[in-house]
């Protein structure tokens, strides 16, 4: 049921999903900057006083809470992103082969995509995996540093930093596609233009229409 003010638009993210995303994005960006200050000489002055190190820990609590928050606020949404991100069909394989076209802003002859396109699946699943690694190593560096040998300490820190690198590169791509495909509204208002969704997520729109036709809740 889309309201009158959302004529020609469809709901892509519920308010609670957008809150979870905002918590994740803001805590990540704080972690990125305060983390960089810990490992990069030119920014070290931010960390040396100590306050940014506390901020890093506060943001870490926010970041760690994201999956729990998602389950708490929108169980169905959490399930969807977890399940769909790790399921690839034949269209997705073809999509990856033509991905360079998609990256150039051309959707017309891409294979039809579901709610998440293949690239989003790859992004979300990689985010889930690297987030798990960064949280695990981060907890070790936070609470169990003193029981690590210098070698283990160096390795743990390096894995932590490299996971952050991976997430940062993923973020560059994420923001890139958000900009190219004007996707910002899906996180700002939750709604997106229906005709664009038909083009970019054809199978999803069909599915929604089918659900409306058969009267099942979406």
């Amino acid at each position, binding site marked *: 049921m889309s309201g009158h003010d959302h004529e020609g638009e469809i709901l892509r993210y519920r308010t609670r999903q957008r809150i979870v995303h905002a918590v994740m994005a803001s805590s990540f960006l704080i972690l990125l900057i305060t983390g960089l200050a810990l490992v990069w000489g030119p920014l070290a002055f931010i960390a040396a006083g*100590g306050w940014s190190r506390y901020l890093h820990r506060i943001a870490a609590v926010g970041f760690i809470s994201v999956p729990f928050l998602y389950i708490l606020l929108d169980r169905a949404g959490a399930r969807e992103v977890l399940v769909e991100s790790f399921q690839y069909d034949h269209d997705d394989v073809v999509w990856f082969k033509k991905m360079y076209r998609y990256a150039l802003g051309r959707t017309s002859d891409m294979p039809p995509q579901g709610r998440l396109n293949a690239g989003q699946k790859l992004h979300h699943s990689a985010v889930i995996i690297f987030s798990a690694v960064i949280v695990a190593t981060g907890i070790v560096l936070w609470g169990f540093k003193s029981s690590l040998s210098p070698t283990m300490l160096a390795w743990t820190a390096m894995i932590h930093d490299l996971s952050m690198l991976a997430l940062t590169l993923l973020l560059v791509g994420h923001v890139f596609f958000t900009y190219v495909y004007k996707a910002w509204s899906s996180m700002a208002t939750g709604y997106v233009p229906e005709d664009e969704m038909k083009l970019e997520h054809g199978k999803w729109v069909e599915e929604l229409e089918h659900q409306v036709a058969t009267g099942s809740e979406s």
Partner: protein
Amino acid sequence: MASAFLLDMTRCIGCEACVLACKAGNELPVEMQYIELIERTSGTFPNLVGGFENHRCYHCTDAACVAVCPTGALFKEDGLTRLDRDACSGCGYCVQACPYGVPKMVGGRSSKCDACASNVGAGGSPWCVTTCPAQALQFGDREKILAEAKSRVAALKDRYPKVQVYGETQAGGLGLVLVLPDDPETLDIPADPPLVPVTVDVWKHIVQPVSMGATALAAVGAGVLGVIARRNHLAELKELEEQEKAGVAAGGSESTEEER
């Protein structure tokens, strides 16, 4: 050329002149102190052996602190371990990793002997060495310092049967060679601190700049490509809209019935 210190525990009289000279010469704030004299003894009273350990950075060749330091604030130079406090982020990894418990956190940053980097760099010698009245401290070319330590040990064999050179091999060889009157363990000095593979350090120094470069490149590339790609996409949408309009005008579009 590697430099090194000689610390002769059998000569030190515990006068603390080095402690003060270090603080004054390096203009250290009150809360900072690089040398700590620790009394180390072994045996029981009449046969007491011991002296003052001149506890400060041991300038390990394979320095654990350098291996774990993410900012590069700690680094090796002429066989000595330098600390650039301005680049230190205060992460505390070095405090955790040093097998000799040397670095301390002062004012949110690591603090330890940097072998008088400014003074020695300008051709002078370390303050502590200059000031020692008992010739317990020396500084110079590591080979010569090792030779000096060995000859002192040879001369002391009669007085201290277990006298020995410490630091020739520990942690890849220390930049601080000690003359110990007894076995290190009995004086509470680790006989052989665990080695940190240098690979971790090499990794860090290659991985970090490459990572920063890759991220910057990706961001710039995405910025440029983004402008082009968005233009393409908008053109595509416009074309689609026009097609649809044309379709509606002609009276028959297939799948947009429900909405309009």
